[in-house]
Protein backbone atom coordinates (compact mmCIF):
# COMPACT_ATOMS: atom_id res chain seq x y z
CA UNK A 1 0.00 0.00 0.00
CA UNK A 2 2.80 2.37 0.97
CA UNK A 3 6.41 1.83 0.02
CA UNK A 4 9.35 4.09 0.84
CA UNK A 5 12.54 3.21 -1.04
CA UNK A 6 15.67 5.08 0.04
CA UNK A 7 13.68 8.25 0.55
CA UNK A 8 15.55 11.44 1.39
CA UNK A 9 14.40 14.94 2.11
CA UNK A 10 16.11 18.14 3.17
CA UNK A 11 14.83 21.44 4.53
CA UNK A 12 17.65 23.68 3.39
CA UNK A 13 20.73 22.01 4.84
CA UNK A 14 18.73 20.03 7.41
CA UNK A 15 18.52 16.37 6.45
CA UNK A 16 14.99 15.59 7.72
CA UNK A 17 14.51 12.19 6.10
CA UNK A 18 17.63 10.10 5.77
CA UNK A 19 17.38 7.00 3.56
CA UNK A 20 13.96 5.88 4.72
CA UNK A 21 12.90 2.36 3.78
CA UNK A 22 9.46 1.34 4.93
CA UNK A 23 6.60 -0.73 3.70
CA UNK A 24 3.03 -0.68 4.97
CA UNK A 25 0.53 -3.23 3.70
CA UNK A 26 -3.22 -2.89 3.47
CA UNK A 27 -4.95 -3.25 6.82
CA UNK A 28 -1.78 -2.60 8.76
CA UNK A 29 -1.60 -0.16 11.66
CA UNK A 30 1.79 1.47 12.09
CA UNK A 31 2.70 3.78 14.95
CA UNK A 32 5.53 6.24 14.44
CA UNK A 33 7.27 7.69 17.46
CA UNK A 34 10.47 9.49 18.32
CA UNK A 35 11.76 12.70 19.85
CA UNK A 36 10.65 16.15 18.72
CA UNK A 37 12.18 17.19 15.42
CA UNK A 38 13.05 13.64 14.40
CA UNK A 39 11.03 13.87 11.18
CA UNK A 40 7.84 11.98 12.10
CA UNK A 41 5.46 14.60 10.75
CA UNK A 42 7.53 15.04 7.62
CA UNK A 43 7.47 11.28 7.06
CA UNK A 44 3.70 10.91 7.11
CA UNK A 45 3.12 14.23 5.32
CA UNK A 46 5.10 12.79 2.40
CA UNK A 47 2.52 10.03 2.07
CA UNK A 48 -0.14 12.40 0.73
CA UNK A 49 2.50 14.74 -0.61
CA UNK A 50 1.91 17.65 1.73
CA UNK A 51 5.71 17.45 1.58
CA UNK A 52 7.68 16.35 -1.46
CA UNK A 53 10.51 13.90 -1.35
CA UNK A 54 13.74 14.89 -3.04
CA UNK A 55 15.51 11.57 -3.51
CA UNK A 56 14.39 7.97 -3.64
CA UNK A 57 11.05 6.46 -4.51
CA UNK A 58 7.71 6.49 -2.76
CA UNK A 59 4.72 4.50 -3.95
CA UNK A 60 1.29 4.99 -2.41
CA UNK A 61 -1.63 2.90 -3.62
CA UNK A 62 0.39 2.14 -6.74
CA UNK A 63 1.08 5.79 -7.54
CA UNK A 64 4.69 6.95 -7.76
CA UNK A 65 4.83 10.11 -5.61
CA UNK A 66 8.36 10.95 -6.72
CA UNK A 67 6.87 11.53 -10.17
CA UNK A 68 5.64 15.13 -10.41
CA UNK A 69 3.10 14.37 -13.14
CA UNK A 70 0.71 12.31 -11.01
CA UNK A 71 -2.82 13.48 -10.30
CA UNK A 72 -2.45 14.88 -6.79
CA UNK A 73 -6.10 15.56 -6.04
CA UNK A 74 -6.97 12.00 -7.03
CA UNK A 75 -4.28 10.63 -4.72
CA UNK A 76 -5.36 12.81 -1.82
CA UNK A 77 -9.00 11.87 -2.19
CA UNK A 78 -8.00 8.31 -1.29
CA UNK A 79 -6.00 9.28 1.81
CA UNK A 80 -7.46 10.82 4.94
CA UNK A 81 -5.28 13.08 7.08
CA UNK A 82 -6.02 13.97 10.68
CA UNK A 83 -4.03 16.91 12.06
CA UNK A 84 -2.87 17.69 15.55
CA UNK A 85 -4.77 20.98 15.42
CA UNK A 86 -7.90 19.46 13.76
CA UNK A 87 -8.17 22.21 11.10
CA UNK A 88 -11.94 22.01 10.81
CA UNK A 89 -13.46 24.65 8.54
CA UNK A 90 -14.63 27.28 11.05
CA UNK A 91 -17.16 28.92 8.72
CA UNK A 92 -19.05 25.68 8.09
CA UNK A 93 -21.27 23.54 10.31
CA UNK A 94 -20.12 20.12 11.43
CA UNK A 95 -22.27 18.48 8.77
CA UNK A 96 -20.94 20.80 6.04
CA UNK A 97 -17.38 20.08 7.16
CA UNK A 98 -17.99 16.40 6.52
CA UNK A 99 -19.98 16.73 3.27
CA UNK A 100 -17.74 19.28 1.52
CA UNK A 101 -15.33 16.85 -0.12
CA UNK A 102 -17.90 14.13 -0.92
CA UNK A 103 -20.01 16.74 -2.72
CA UNK A 104 -17.25 18.49 -4.64
CA UNK A 105 -14.67 15.75 -5.10
CA UNK A 106 -16.85 12.64 -5.26
CA UNK A 107 -19.63 14.63 -6.97
CA UNK A 108 -22.26 13.16 -4.66
CA UNK A 109 -25.72 14.67 -4.43
CA UNK A 110 -26.20 16.80 -1.34
CA UNK A 111 -28.81 14.47 0.18
CA UNK A 112 -26.65 11.43 -0.42
CA UNK A 113 -23.57 13.14 1.04
CA UNK A 114 -25.54 14.20 4.11
CA UNK A 115 -26.76 10.69 4.73
CA UNK A 116 -23.19 9.45 4.42
CA UNK A 117 -21.93 12.20 6.73
CA UNK A 118 -24.54 11.38 9.36
CA UNK A 119 -23.46 7.76 9.25
CA UNK A 120 -19.82 8.77 9.81
CA UNK A 121 -20.75 11.22 12.57
CA UNK A 122 -22.72 8.43 14.19
CA UNK A 123 -19.59 6.30 14.12
CA UNK A 124 -17.59 8.90 16.02
CA UNK A 125 -20.51 9.48 18.38
CA UNK A 126 -21.39 13.00 17.27
CA UNK A 127 -24.55 12.69 15.21
CA UNK A 128 -26.28 15.09 17.61
CA UNK A 129 -23.74 17.82 16.83
CA UNK A 130 -24.35 17.91 13.07
CA UNK A 131 -25.73 21.45 13.05
CA UNK A 132 -23.20 22.86 15.52
CA UNK A 133 -20.24 24.95 14.45
CA UNK A 134 -16.70 23.81 15.24
CA UNK A 135 -16.06 26.55 17.81
CA UNK A 136 -18.99 25.24 19.86
CA UNK A 137 -17.29 21.86 20.30
CA UNK A 138 -14.63 20.67 22.72
CA UNK A 139 -11.22 19.71 21.38
CA UNK A 140 -12.00 16.01 21.57
CA UNK A 141 -15.25 16.50 19.71
CA UNK A 142 -13.54 18.60 17.04
CA UNK A 143 -10.97 15.90 16.49
CA UNK A 144 -13.68 13.28 16.16
CA UNK A 145 -15.41 15.45 13.55
CA UNK A 146 -12.08 15.68 11.73
CA UNK A 147 -11.92 11.88 11.72
CA UNK A 148 -15.48 11.68 10.39
CA UNK A 149 -14.51 14.20 7.69
CA UNK A 150 -11.69 11.89 6.65
CA UNK A 151 -13.88 8.79 6.76
CA UNK A 152 -16.53 10.37 4.55
CA UNK A 153 -14.18 10.03 1.59
CA UNK A 154 -13.94 6.26 2.24
CA UNK A 155 -10.16 6.50 2.24
CA UNK A 156 -7.83 3.59 1.62
CA UNK A 157 -5.34 5.00 4.11
CA UNK A 158 -5.79 7.19 7.19
CA UNK A 159 -2.86 9.26 8.43
CA UNK A 160 -2.78 10.78 11.91
CA UNK A 161 -0.21 13.36 13.04
CA UNK A 162 -0.28 13.47 16.84
CA UNK A 163 -4.09 13.46 16.92
CA UNK A 164 -4.31 13.70 20.71
CA UNK A 165 -1.39 16.01 21.53
CA UNK A 166 -3.46 19.19 21.48
CA UNK A 167 -6.17 17.73 23.71
CA UNK A 168 -6.86 18.03 27.41
CA UNK A 169 -6.09 14.70 29.10
CA UNK A 170 -9.73 13.89 29.79
CA UNK A 171 -10.54 14.09 26.05
CA UNK A 172 -7.75 11.88 24.78
CA UNK A 173 -9.65 8.68 25.56
CA UNK A 174 -12.68 9.46 23.41
CA UNK A 175 -10.50 10.11 20.35
CA UNK A 176 -8.35 7.04 20.91
CA UNK A 177 -11.47 4.91 21.30
CA UNK A 178 -12.60 5.94 17.82
CA UNK A 179 -9.15 5.19 16.40
CA UNK A 180 -9.02 1.79 18.07
CA UNK A 181 -12.36 0.90 16.53
CA UNK A 182 -11.11 1.91 13.08
CA UNK A 183 -7.95 -0.12 13.51
CA UNK A 184 -9.93 -3.18 14.55
CA UNK A 185 -12.14 -2.80 11.49
CA UNK A 186 -9.09 -3.18 9.30
CA UNK A 187 -8.34 0.40 8.25
CA UNK A 188 -4.79 1.00 7.01
CA UNK A 189 -3.39 3.57 9.42
CA UNK A 190 -0.13 5.42 10.01
CA UNK A 191 -0.25 7.17 13.34
CA UNK A 192 2.34 9.53 14.78
CA UNK A 193 1.69 9.32 18.51
CA UNK A 194 3.29 8.76 21.87
CA UNK A 195 0.21 7.03 23.25
CA UNK A 196 1.75 3.76 24.28
CA UNK A 197 -1.58 2.23 25.28
CA UNK A 198 -2.96 2.75 21.81
CA UNK A 199 0.18 1.34 20.23
CA UNK A 200 0.13 -1.78 22.40
CA UNK A 201 -3.57 -2.34 21.82
CA UNK A 202 -3.82 -2.09 18.04
CA UNK A 203 -0.50 -1.37 16.33
CA UNK A 204 1.07 -4.12 14.27
CA UNK A 205 4.37 -2.32 14.23
CA UNK A 206 6.06 0.57 16.00
CA UNK A 207 8.62 2.65 14.16
CA UNK A 208 11.11 4.68 16.12
CA UNK A 209 12.72 7.65 14.41
CA UNK A 210 15.57 9.92 15.41
CA UNK A 211 17.36 12.60 13.41
CA UNK A 212 15.60 11.70 10.21
CA UNK A 213 16.38 7.98 10.36
CA UNK A 214 14.33 4.94 11.23
CA UNK A 215 16.34 3.59 14.15
CA UNK A 216 14.17 0.69 15.16
CA UNK A 217 11.10 -1.24 14.05
CA UNK A 218 9.30 -3.84 16.06
CA UNK A 219 6.11 -5.25 17.49
CA UNK A 220 4.73 -2.87 20.13
CA UNK A 221 5.29 -5.06 23.20
CA UNK A 222 8.76 -6.03 22.07
CA UNK A 223 9.63 -2.39 21.29
CA UNK A 224 8.35 -0.88 24.52
CA UNK A 225 9.47 -3.66 26.90
CA UNK A 226 12.73 -4.53 25.28
CA UNK A 227 14.06 -1.80 22.98
CA UNK A 228 17.17 -2.71 21.02
CA UNK A 229 18.86 0.70 20.80
CA UNK A 230 19.93 3.04 23.58
CA UNK A 231 18.19 5.94 21.94
CA UNK A 232 14.87 4.10 21.91
CA UNK A 233 15.36 2.99 25.51
CA UNK A 234 16.02 6.57 26.57
CA UNK A 235 13.00 7.81 24.64
CA UNK A 236 10.69 5.20 26.18
CA UNK A 237 11.88 5.96 29.71
CA UNK A 238 11.07 9.63 29.03
CA UNK A 239 7.52 9.05 27.83
CA UNK A 240 6.91 6.68 30.72
CA UNK A 241 7.60 9.48 33.18
CA UNK A 242 4.67 11.51 31.82
Amino acid at each position, binding site marked *: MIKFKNVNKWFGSLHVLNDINLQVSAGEVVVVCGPSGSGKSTLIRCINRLERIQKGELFVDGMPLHDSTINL*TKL*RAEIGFV*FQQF*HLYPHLSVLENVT*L*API*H*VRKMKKKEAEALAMEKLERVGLADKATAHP*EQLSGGQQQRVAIARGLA*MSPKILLFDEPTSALDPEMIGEVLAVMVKLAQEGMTMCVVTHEMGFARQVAHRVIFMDEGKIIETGKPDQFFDNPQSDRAAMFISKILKH
Partner: protein
Amino acid sequence: MQIFPFFLKGLWMTVLISGASLILGTLLGFLLGMLRSRKNRLVNPLIGFFVDVMRGTPFIVQVFIVFFIFPEFGIQLEAFTAAVLAMTIMGSAFICEIVTAGILAVPKGQWEASSSSGLNILQQLRFVILPQAMKTILPPLVGQYVLLIKDSSVVSAIGVVELTRVGWLTVVRIPEGLMVFSLVGALYFAISYPLIRISNSLERKLTVNRVSL
Protein backbone atom coordinates in the same frame (compact mmCIF):
# COMPACT_ATOMS: atom_id res chain seq x y z
CA MET B 1 -28.88 76.35 -18.24
CA GLN B 2 -30.65 74.71 -15.30
CA ILE B 3 -28.03 74.09 -12.64
CA PHE B 4 -29.73 71.30 -10.75
CA PRO B 5 -30.37 68.85 -13.60
CA PHE B 6 -26.80 69.51 -14.76
CA PHE B 7 -25.52 68.48 -11.34
CA LEU B 8 -27.66 65.37 -11.38
CA LYS B 9 -26.18 64.43 -14.74
CA GLY B 10 -22.69 64.88 -13.32
CA LEU B 11 -23.58 62.84 -10.27
CA TRP B 12 -24.95 60.08 -12.49
CA MET B 13 -21.73 60.05 -14.53
CA THR B 14 -19.64 59.79 -11.35
CA VAL B 15 -21.78 56.89 -10.15
CA LEU B 16 -21.53 55.21 -13.55
CA ILE B 17 -17.76 55.50 -13.86
CA SER B 18 -17.15 54.52 -10.26
CA GLY B 19 -19.64 51.67 -10.34
CA ALA B 20 -18.28 50.19 -13.58
CA SER B 21 -14.66 50.42 -12.49
CA LEU B 22 -15.42 49.14 -8.98
CA ILE B 23 -16.99 46.02 -10.39
CA LEU B 24 -14.30 45.44 -13.03
CA GLY B 25 -11.51 46.40 -10.64
CA THR B 26 -12.85 44.03 -8.00
CA LEU B 27 -12.95 41.12 -10.45
CA LEU B 28 -9.45 41.86 -11.75
CA GLY B 29 -8.16 42.56 -8.24
CA PHE B 30 -9.45 39.25 -6.88
CA LEU B 31 -7.95 37.40 -9.82
CA LEU B 32 -4.56 39.07 -9.31
CA GLY B 33 -4.76 38.62 -5.55
CA MET B 34 -5.49 34.91 -5.85
CA LEU B 35 -2.60 34.50 -8.29
CA ARG B 36 -0.29 36.50 -6.08
CA SER B 37 -1.11 34.50 -2.96
CA ARG B 38 0.19 31.36 -4.72
CA LYS B 39 3.67 32.90 -4.39
CA ASN B 40 4.74 31.60 -7.77
CA ARG B 41 8.31 32.60 -8.51
CA LEU B 42 7.49 33.89 -11.99
CA VAL B 43 4.06 35.40 -11.54
CA ASN B 44 4.46 36.96 -8.12
CA PRO B 45 7.25 39.46 -8.95
CA LEU B 46 5.36 40.52 -12.08
CA ILE B 47 2.18 41.29 -10.16
CA GLY B 48 4.24 42.88 -7.40
CA PHE B 49 5.92 45.19 -9.89
CA PHE B 50 2.56 46.12 -11.43
CA VAL B 51 1.15 46.93 -8.00
CA ASP B 52 4.17 49.02 -7.05
CA VAL B 53 4.01 51.02 -10.27
CA MET B 54 0.32 51.70 -9.76
CA ARG B 55 0.86 52.72 -6.15
CA GLY B 56 3.95 54.76 -6.92
CA THR B 57 2.57 56.98 -9.67
CA PRO B 58 -0.09 59.70 -9.42
CA PHE B 59 -3.47 58.62 -10.65
CA ILE B 60 -3.76 61.66 -12.90
CA VAL B 61 -0.60 60.58 -14.73
CA GLN B 62 -2.08 57.12 -15.25
CA VAL B 63 -5.23 58.66 -16.67
CA PHE B 64 -3.18 60.83 -19.04
CA ILE B 65 -1.20 57.81 -20.19
CA VAL B 66 -4.34 55.85 -20.98
CA PHE B 67 -6.02 58.79 -22.71
CA PHE B 68 -3.14 60.54 -24.49
CA ILE B 69 -0.39 57.95 -24.89
CA PHE B 70 -2.36 54.77 -25.66
CA PRO B 71 -3.61 56.33 -28.96
CA GLU B 72 -0.01 56.53 -30.14
CA PHE B 73 0.02 52.74 -30.00
CA GLY B 74 -3.23 52.61 -31.91
CA ILE B 75 -5.54 52.30 -28.89
CA GLN B 76 -7.98 55.16 -29.33
CA LEU B 77 -10.39 55.42 -26.42
CA GLU B 78 -13.23 57.75 -25.66
CA ALA B 79 -12.81 59.79 -22.51
CA PHE B 80 -15.42 57.68 -20.68
CA THR B 81 -13.81 54.38 -21.63
CA ALA B 82 -10.34 55.69 -20.83
CA ALA B 83 -11.58 56.82 -17.43
CA VAL B 84 -13.15 53.46 -16.59
CA LEU B 85 -10.08 51.62 -17.84
CA ALA B 86 -7.63 53.74 -15.83
CA MET B 87 -9.73 53.43 -12.67
CA THR B 88 -10.16 49.70 -13.13
CA ILE B 89 -6.43 49.15 -13.48
CA MET B 90 -5.55 51.36 -10.54
CA GLY B 91 -8.30 49.89 -8.38
CA SER B 92 -7.29 46.33 -9.20
CA ALA B 93 -3.77 47.00 -7.93
CA PHE B 94 -4.99 48.15 -4.53
CA ILE B 95 -7.66 45.45 -4.33
CA CYS B 96 -5.05 42.83 -5.29
CA GLU B 97 -3.04 43.75 -2.21
CA ILE B 98 -6.11 43.62 0.05
CA VAL B 99 -7.14 40.22 -1.32
CA THR B 100 -3.62 38.80 -1.05
CA ALA B 101 -3.36 39.92 2.58
CA GLY B 102 -6.77 38.38 3.31
CA ILE B 103 -5.87 35.05 1.74
CA LEU B 104 -2.50 34.90 3.50
CA ALA B 105 -4.23 35.58 6.82
CA VAL B 106 -6.12 32.28 6.55
CA PRO B 107 -4.16 29.68 8.55
CA LYS B 108 -2.02 27.31 6.50
CA GLY B 109 -3.83 24.36 8.08
CA GLN B 110 -6.97 25.27 6.14
CA TRP B 111 -5.09 24.80 2.86
CA GLU B 112 -3.61 21.55 4.11
CA ALA B 113 -6.90 20.15 5.36
CA SER B 114 -8.79 21.02 2.20
CA SER B 115 -6.11 19.78 -0.18
CA SER B 116 -5.79 16.60 1.88
CA SER B 117 -9.42 15.81 1.22
CA GLY B 118 -8.90 16.09 -2.51
CA LEU B 119 -10.25 19.55 -3.32
CA ASN B 120 -8.46 21.25 -6.21
CA ILE B 121 -7.11 24.78 -5.91
CA LEU B 122 -10.20 26.50 -7.26
CA GLN B 123 -12.49 24.50 -4.96
CA GLN B 124 -10.22 25.24 -2.02
CA LEU B 125 -10.36 28.97 -2.72
CA ARG B 126 -14.07 29.02 -3.34
CA PHE B 127 -15.35 26.85 -0.50
CA VAL B 128 -12.70 27.12 2.19
CA ILE B 129 -10.22 29.95 1.81
CA LEU B 130 -12.13 32.93 0.38
CA PRO B 131 -15.14 32.62 2.72
CA GLN B 132 -12.70 32.94 5.63
CA ALA B 133 -10.54 35.56 3.94
CA MET B 134 -13.58 37.79 3.36
CA LYS B 135 -13.53 38.75 7.04
CA THR B 136 -10.12 40.32 6.54
CA ILE B 137 -10.85 41.57 3.04
CA LEU B 138 -14.22 43.29 3.40
CA PRO B 139 -13.51 46.28 5.67
CA PRO B 140 -10.48 47.59 3.73
CA LEU B 141 -12.18 46.70 0.43
CA VAL B 142 -15.15 48.93 1.15
CA GLY B 143 -12.71 51.59 2.36
CA GLN B 144 -10.91 51.26 -0.97
CA TYR B 145 -14.19 51.81 -2.79
CA VAL B 146 -14.55 55.16 -1.03
CA LEU B 147 -11.06 56.19 -2.14
CA LEU B 148 -11.81 55.13 -5.71
CA ILE B 149 -15.02 57.09 -5.84
CA LYS B 150 -13.20 60.20 -4.67
CA ASP B 151 -10.38 59.58 -7.14
CA SER B 152 -12.90 59.52 -9.94
CA SER B 153 -12.86 63.34 -9.73
CA VAL B 154 -9.46 63.16 -11.43
CA VAL B 155 -10.97 62.02 -14.72
CA SER B 156 -12.55 65.45 -15.07
CA ALA B 157 -9.10 66.40 -16.38
CA ILE B 158 -9.67 64.47 -19.62
CA GLY B 159 -13.07 66.03 -20.14
CA VAL B 160 -15.46 63.47 -18.70
CA VAL B 161 -18.42 65.51 -17.51
CA GLU B 162 -18.76 64.00 -14.07
CA LEU B 163 -19.44 65.75 -10.79
CA THR B 164 -16.18 67.69 -10.45
CA ARG B 165 -16.23 68.78 -14.10
CA VAL B 166 -19.80 69.95 -13.64
CA GLY B 167 -18.56 72.07 -10.75
CA TRP B 168 -15.88 73.69 -12.92
CA LEU B 169 -18.25 74.32 -15.79
CA THR B 170 -20.83 75.85 -13.49
CA VAL B 171 -18.52 78.03 -11.50
CA VAL B 172 -17.28 79.93 -14.56
CA ARG B 173 -20.87 80.87 -15.32
CA ILE B 174 -22.25 81.88 -11.96
CA PRO B 175 -20.59 83.85 -9.19
CA GLU B 176 -21.48 81.61 -6.21
CA GLY B 177 -18.29 79.51 -6.20
CA LEU B 178 -18.56 78.48 -2.58
CA MET B 179 -22.11 77.28 -3.08
CA VAL B 180 -21.17 75.32 -6.20
CA PHE B 181 -18.25 73.41 -4.72
CA SER B 182 -20.06 72.87 -1.44
CA LEU B 183 -22.73 71.15 -3.46
CA VAL B 184 -20.13 69.10 -5.33
CA GLY B 185 -18.54 68.07 -2.04
CA ALA B 186 -21.91 67.28 -0.49
CA LEU B 187 -22.83 65.00 -3.37
CA TYR B 188 -19.55 63.07 -3.13
CA PHE B 189 -20.12 62.78 0.57
CA ALA B 190 -23.64 61.50 -0.03
CA ILE B 191 -22.22 58.56 -2.01
CA SER B 192 -19.23 57.91 0.21
CA TYR B 193 -20.83 58.24 3.61
CA PRO B 194 -22.94 55.07 3.51
CA LEU B 195 -19.87 53.12 2.41
CA ILE B 196 -17.79 54.60 5.22
CA ARG B 197 -20.46 53.55 7.67
CA ILE B 198 -20.58 50.06 6.17
CA SER B 199 -16.81 49.75 6.35
CA ASN B 200 -16.76 50.87 9.98
CA SER B 201 -19.51 48.56 11.08
CA LEU B 202 -17.98 45.62 9.20
CA GLU B 203 -14.71 46.31 10.94
CA ARG B 204 -16.41 46.33 14.31
CA LYS B 205 -18.53 43.25 13.68
CA LEU B 206 -15.75 41.17 12.18
CA THR B 207 -13.17 42.02 14.85
CA VAL B 208 -15.63 41.25 17.64
CA ASN B 209 -16.27 37.92 15.93
CA ARG B 210 -12.62 37.12 15.77
CA VAL B 211 -12.05 37.84 19.45
CA SER B 212 -14.89 35.52 20.40
CA LEU B 213 -13.36 32.65 18.42
